[in-house]
């Protein structure tokens, strides 16, 4: 019984964020708003390191184990990198209410942590809603821009719609088992209600993760939201939603049905193929990265489909998720550093001359997303996932995934090529000055992308422990 200590990181973030509401304009004037947020996230990461594992199955609807600890650290580090690297960009985007911005970001992060730690469907739902409600507001935080309001409205309506499906699934699970816990006290036999319950929860969470065919909100929201917000959510939401999806799927796998892996197989193929085909046609980089995130979620699902034969598939998925986070945070953070309205390919033409640092980092991240050296993280994680699919005997799925990653190179390459080999439009040739904190965060992120792939063993040990604690060894 270690009681409330397992709440410590979440409490740090959610209570700490209240400081912004209490102090009003004081923090903004003293320029401390951003640094308070960094401090709170660092404190949360430190606490994640020292809180003990839960004894028994769960306490107060939350569970601390290797799985939740790893993903919580990834979400917090991703949030920290995105907040640090976009600190200067936020002001350029015309978000003049910094207090509210950081309050909402920390609230969203605490909701994401609840999703990651949950061991109870009620806490899952509360976490999803806390994170989502804060993000709906963040997306609309450039209030004078039509596309920001539009993305916020679309995200809100579709997010609530998917939450309703998740909630219906939870109600049906409660009706079938008599408990809201993810670990039923007594084994309940499979029946139609449990089938419907998992179907509804899968639909709701596939929306949140952004898996095709439930992905249509992703491009609009990623493009319309301020780039600093997109940076934040591309990592935090992805990790939290994947954590929740994995928990529900692993629970679902205790009812082995012949069609269940078939359904996931179809979802993975749809996400990879639709995501990549749509990304090929985009002129907006943010939109392209959004469709690429759909495709990448499909690759991650390939690992989950391979779990039929043990926890190694989940480990491969987690490895992919961690390296994907580093790459996507970096890509969006570079865009945010280029300018508040950097979106079309023309905005990064000639970036190699305007800011070699940004162009170099961008190249590392995009080659990583494409899965090519020297950004080894992308290549290594793709190899892990695909080899899991092969060893599970899913040859068709592995071939489709490899073909998809080859196809994806076509659009990922365009961006570094535009940055280095095309000249900038006449009106934007002046060099970009990159603030020191942004440069530091980007370089560390790029270094992580290269090093994770070159030396995968430490991370691999971590994700194996995490997968074992989720699935059971």
């Amino acid at each position, binding site marked *: 019984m270690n009681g409330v200590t397992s709440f410590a990181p979440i409490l740090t973030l959610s209570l700490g964020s209240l400081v912004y509401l209490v102090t009003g304009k004081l923090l903004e004037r003293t320029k401390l708003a951003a640094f308070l947020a960094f401090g709170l996230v660092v404190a949360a990461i430190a606490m994640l390191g020292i809180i003990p594992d839960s004894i028994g199955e769960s306490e107060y609807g939350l569970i601390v184990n290797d799985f939740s600890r790893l993903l919580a650290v990834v979400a917090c580090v991703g949030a920290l990198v995105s907040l640090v690297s976009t600190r200067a960009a936020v002001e350029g985007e015309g978000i003049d209410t910094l207090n509210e911005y950081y309050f909402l970001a920390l609230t969203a992060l605490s909701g994401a942590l609840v999703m990651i730690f949950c061991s109870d469907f009620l806490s899952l739902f509360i976490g999803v809603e806390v994170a989502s409600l804060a993000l709906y507001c963040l997306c609309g935080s450039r*209030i004078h821009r039509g596309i920001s*309001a539009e993305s916020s409205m679309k995200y809100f309506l579709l997010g*609530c719609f998917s939450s*309703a499906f998740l909630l*219906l699934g939870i109600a049906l699970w409660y*009706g079938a088992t*008599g*408990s809201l816990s993810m670990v039923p006290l007594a084994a309940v036999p499979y029946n139609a209600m449990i089938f419907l319950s998992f179907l509804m929860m899968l639909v709701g969470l596939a929306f949140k993760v952004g898996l095709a065919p439930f992905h249509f909100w992703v491009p609009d929201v990623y493009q319309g939201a301020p780039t600093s917000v997109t940076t934040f959510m591309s990592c935090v939401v992805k990790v939290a939603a994947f954590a929740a999806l994995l928990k529900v799927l692993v629970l679902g796998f205790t009812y082995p049905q012949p069609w269940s892996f078939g359904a996931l197989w179809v979802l993975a193929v749809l996400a990879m193929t639709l995501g990549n085909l749509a990304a090929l046609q985009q002129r907006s980089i943010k939109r392209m990265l959004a469709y690429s995130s759909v495709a990448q979620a499909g690759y991650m699902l390939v690992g989950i489909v391979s779990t039929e034969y043990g926890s190694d598939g989940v480990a491969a998925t987690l490895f992919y998720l961690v390296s994907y986070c580093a790459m996507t945070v970096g890509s969006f953070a570079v865009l945010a550093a280029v300018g508040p309205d950097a979106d079309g390919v023309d905005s990064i033409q000639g970036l190699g001359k305007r800011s070699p640092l940004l162009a170099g980092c961008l190249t590392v991240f995009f080659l990583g997303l494409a899965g090519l050296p020297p950004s080894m993280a992308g290549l290594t994680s793709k190899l892990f996932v695909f080899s899991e699919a092969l060893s599970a005997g899913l040859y068709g799925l592995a071939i489709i995934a490899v073909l998809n990653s080859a196809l994806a190179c076509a659009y990922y390459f365009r961006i570094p090529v535009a940055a280095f080999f095309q000249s900038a439009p006449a009106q934007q040739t002046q060099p970009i000055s990159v603030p020191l904190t942004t440069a530091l965060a980007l370089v560390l992120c790029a270094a992580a992308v290269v090093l994770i792939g070159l030396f995968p063993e430490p991370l691999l040990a971590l994700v194996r422990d995490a997968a074992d604690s989720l699935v059971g060894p």
Partner: protein
Amino acid sequence: MGSVVTYVGLSLVLFAIGAVGVCIRRNAIVVFMCIEMMLNAVNLAFVAFSKLQGNLDGQVAVFFVMVIAAAESAIGLAIIIALFRNLVSVETTDAAQLKW
């Protein structure tokens, strides 16, 4: 038992009506009302299942859902007002700057 089936059936029908409404209506406020109806349909199911299972977990869940739905309406209406200030319309078909 028979009455529980009736209530759950009613809640599923309400949920379906709400879902259809979300898909076919174009006014953001009406779409939002349909979503609220879906959430309340699930609340009805929670209460019915709570009676069926003979514990209070489902009824406690309803309170949480009600609080979350209230927070959702506060934020949702604010977002719709922000949209109206930019577009002078709350029709979802008019919010079409973001596509392909």
